């Protein structure tokens, strides 16, 4: 498999970041960065990461299944993650969640039919003092109201 020069550079740095013989340490970041580029952790990617880190594909599979941000199927181009954990719950996170489901017509870990937007109810994302909070891919949005959520979702449609 070939990756973009940026990702190759990142991989090259990662495998030398750990003590000699500990290249396997690069596995989780490698899978996540590669997923960002190709959209999902495909069987080909599993084989490629295994080859590069000198482990078996099964050893990659067992790691892959543990981490909630790693997934085998592609998400939407914009992955909308709404937190409903305690601090967000107290400040309207659940309302936002239901609002987003109704608005997009999809539920937890589902993707819109055009493949543009996916939705996930997530656990605490570390924005508790500025709750309710959400992320679109890696971007944070704080103190989100239903109106603001509409604007964010409309913006996603327009930019795609």
């Amino acid at each position, binding site marked *: 498999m070939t990756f973009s020069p940026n990702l190759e550079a990142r991989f090259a740095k990662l495998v030398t*970041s*750990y*003590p000699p013989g*500990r290249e*396997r*340490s*690069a*596995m*989780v*970041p490698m*899978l*996540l*960065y590669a997923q960002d580029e190709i959209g999902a952790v495909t069987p080909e990617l599993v084989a490629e990461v295994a080859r590069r*880190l000198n*482990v078996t594909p099964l050893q990659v599979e*067992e*790691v892959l299944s*543990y*981490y*909630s*941000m*790693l997934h085998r199927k592609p998400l939407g181009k914009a992955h909308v993650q709404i937190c*409903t*954990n*305690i*601090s967000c*719950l*107290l*400040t309207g996170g*659940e*309302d936002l969640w*239901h609002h987003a489901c109704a608005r997009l017509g999809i539920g937890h870990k589902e993707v819109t039919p055009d493949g543009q937007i996916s939705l996930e109810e997530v*656990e*605490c*994302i*570390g*924005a*508790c*003092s*500025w*709750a309710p909070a959400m*992320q679109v891919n*890696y*971007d*944070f949005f*704080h103190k989100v109201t239903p109106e603001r959520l509409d604007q964010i979702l409309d913006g996603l449609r327009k930019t795609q």
Partner: protein
Amino acid sequence: MLYNEPSPLEVKVLTRRFSLPHSETIDTYLATDGYKAFQKALGMKPEEIIEEVKVSNLRGRGGAGFPTGMKWSFVPRTSLKPKYIVVNADESEPGTCKDRVLIENDPHQLIEGMLIAALSVDAHAGYIYVRGEYRYLIEILDKAIAEAYDRGYLGKNLLGSNFSFDAYTHSGAGAYECGEESALLESLEGKRGIPRIRPPFPAVVGAFQCPTILNNVETYCAAPAIIRDGGAAFAALGIPKAGGTKLTCLTGHVNKPGVYELPLGFPVDKMINEVGGGIRNGKKLKAFIPGGSSCPVLTAEECEGLTMDYDAMAKRKTMLGSGGVVIMDEDTCMVKVALRIMRFYAHESCGWCIPCREGTAWLRKILTRFHDGMGRRDDIVLIGDLAKNMLGRTFCPLGDAAALPTISIVEKFREEFEAHLDEKPCPYEKASQLVMA
């Protein structure tokens, strides 16, 4: 970037650069005494550095509150194995968002803290384990690390000494359990984040099976101030046995939620009403979580005369924890709170220890049934029994973290559980929410 207005009641030590322009750059850092503590530490013996940290009464800021100087002293400095510095930036404890602002606004303070820790145990490499969701912080850290290499604060023969140190960022990929020290080390080695049995502790057998200092971001960030101004000065900011300041995240039903740096021993009442501007909409306080959802919940009465410190919280049978304060007003349904907390732990249990894996899943099911009005009177006792049977029966503290708040809520708010019996709708739920649920 600051996400909330600072409070005049704050004592700014770790956050003192936050309002400066370009506070994340090495130029701002160097212009404000940056890396001076490292320079000073280079001239100190390792035992002198550790002694200074002991004098500071700094206790671990990740949640356990273990004395930091003592932790550093457990590392076998003369071991022939390499020693490592690992930073826990896997901030995932619900209610906690302080490490994020520390890294975002002053990444060099963290790097300098790592350097000081490294000098105290003769370590030459350090890893910052950042939760995957905080991608932008990895970019900020990578930039800061590159700046530090450029200016000679990372790399070989630093400031003309024999001391060399390399720093790396390492991304997680979504797992609360990886904030637990031994699971974090497994994850750093490219494995599933399941906990290790202890002893041996990471100080002796840590990263890559070598001696390791593993602390929270905020703990390392305190080290430059301690070395620069002396451990005694840092200790004097707090109270006996708990030195310095603590970044406190006010969250929930409060007028001015935000991250504030407050001295240890700060009164809870003053924190809610003056720093936080009081409870929203003029409501009354019902319940209080001092430091993240793993802590037993306190009632409003239990908060009277309480101060934010490790021992005062222990006397109330709870914990100071990570600094994630959750404030709940009189309209909060405590059954729902117990359910939401348990849903989280059931989701995050790594499944390694059966009492935690099964206990959290069953408690989630029972609490769901209860909140839906299908609970049985016996369930109230069952919830408490199930939770108590998890305590102390797991490799890592996640089992306890799930059980303790549950036990506290059932014991202290039993009448709310009774109010949900006999197919009655949740008395606190708005009509609209019932329709949507």
